[in-house]
């Protein structure tokens, strides 16, 4: 024991010790006395121990945690027939105490159940649609109905729409989270019109097709004009209509140099004045019996097809049959 050692070494008598303490007390010097030595001093039974070193660990009474008044979760106070739209009026991160559903989400740890909703990060991360329950959607749509207009009757099908409104203008807009609202692709405007809606004669149609080149789709007979050269979509839209107007008017005009168009420039084969017509005429003249009209017409049609549609099995076989009939071998 330390106190015993000190007694042996220092020879400190109890009386001296008590004198020191009393002196210290009168001079307001801080002295520490262990509980044990204080007890002993009080009882006056044993010799008080002098403790100069730090005290041994003295067990204090256990710290009593303050019990907070925890309010029960909100869903316990909610009625069964409450208006859920008032509880969750707008998009909100999942709040387990407000939602009366026992939802679970997440991959369970081994041997565990799927984690419940309390403090569940997965449930909080994912967007929930609790603010868009069917009665709320219905209520909001009822309120929006007055801003909507019905579709006019009589233009339900695409054919009718094209009859009344031959031009279709397409435009895209974009919505995504990014530092800026604008998307450059939103300026692009596409105009589609079917050529059968335009009042064009043969020359006009041919000239228009030469001007637009690959913007015309032969299968659907549609002209597509894409404008993206201006920064705003309204400007591109005006430019599209301007282009359509200019194309139409230019194709209706005949320039003085257009008469220089040669046989090689022709977009399709024309029978009148062709070498085939001259050859056929020679055959007819040399033939003693008059060849029937329909044979001549058939031969003319078949030769035109052969040139315009290309040489493939059906056209060639038709040509063969027609020539046989003409020559008289069929």
């Amino acid at each position: 024991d330390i106190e015993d050692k000190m007694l042996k070494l220092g020879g400190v008598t109890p009386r001296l010790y008590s004198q020191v303490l009393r002196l210290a007390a009168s001079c307001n010097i801080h002295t520490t006395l262990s509980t044990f030595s204080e007890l002993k001093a009080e009882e006056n039974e044993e010799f008080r121990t002098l403790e100069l070193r730090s005290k041994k660990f003295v067990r204090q009474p256990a710290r009593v945690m303050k019990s907070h008044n925890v309010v029960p979760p909100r869903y316990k106070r909610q009625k069964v027939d409450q208006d859920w739209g008032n509880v969750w009026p707008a998009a909100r991160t999942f709040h387990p105490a407000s939602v009366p559903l026992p939802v679970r989400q997440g991959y369970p740890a081994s041997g565990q159940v799927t984690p419940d909703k309390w403090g569940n990060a997965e449930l909080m991360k994912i967007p929930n649609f609790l603010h868009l329950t069917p009665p709320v959607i219905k209520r909001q749509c009822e309120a929006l109905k007055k801003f909507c207009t019905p579709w006019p009757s009589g233009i339900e099908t695409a054919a009718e729409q094209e009859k009344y409104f031959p031009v279709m203008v397409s435009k895209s807009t974009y919505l995504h989270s990014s530092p800026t609202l604008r998307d450059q692709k939103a300026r692009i405007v596409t105009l589609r019109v079917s050529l059968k809606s335009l009042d064009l004669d043969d020359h006009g149609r041919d000239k228009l097709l030469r001007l637009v080149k690959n913007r015309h789709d032969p299968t659907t007979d549609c002209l597509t004009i894409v404008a993206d050269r201006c920064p705003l979509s309204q400007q591109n839209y005006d430019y599209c209509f301007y282009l359509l107007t200019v194309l139409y008017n230019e194709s209706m005009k005949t320039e003085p140099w257009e008469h220089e168009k040669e046989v090689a420039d022709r977009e399709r084969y024309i029978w009148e004045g062709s070498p085939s017509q001259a050859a056929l005429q020679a055959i007819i003249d040399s033939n003693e019996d008059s060849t029937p009209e329909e044979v001549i017409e058939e031969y003319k049609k078949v030769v035109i097809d052969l040139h315009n549609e290309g040489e493939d099995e059906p056209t060639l076989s038709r040509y063969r049959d027609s020539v046989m009939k003409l020559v008289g071998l069929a």
Partner: protein
Amino acid sequence: MRKVASVLMMAGNIQGAAGSIFGRCVVPRKLVRSTPACGFRISEKLSAIPLLRSSLLPQRTLSPKLFHTASLSYLSASDDLAVGEPDKLYSLVEVECRGHDTAVLRSYLTFVSSAASHLNVSLEEILWPKKHIHRWTLLKSVHIHKHHRVQYEVRTHFLIMKFARLTGSTTDTFLEYIQRNLPEGVAMKVTKHELHRLPEHVKPSSEVIV
């Protein structure tokens, strides 16, 4: 834009006089039904176009005294249609949504189809194009250790919804409602196909009815 916001505030779920902005009550904008056939320029040959009579353009009037004078800037109708201007016609409106989670897109589709059925918008087609996966490989360590790498991937799921035969007012209303409730992490692209007449100096053929 503003009309939907104000409507949703009022028609919403806040009871009593709590639906007030600027400390005063918001009065719903009155709608004055215009005369029939105002949606399209009335021609003498109305009988030739018996169909377009039903398109009405809603007009809005405000009572200015009930709004705070300091914040009237948002009420100016800069991009809204003027009174008597014909409503636009969209034969097709395609809405493409992109997201990283199919469950979110599916829930959004439920909401959109429900809203469309309430507002009498015809949802013609729903497509789910194949997802796109972008993968790339990086070195795991800052310096050397070339044989140890880490791989990332980003998956993008697509949803396309096609609505047919919408007028301009319906489109604006419907799209604004849909876009305000677009969930976080989902991007949207709207393609509108508008019906137009031929421009003035282009002569229509006999197939076109003017």
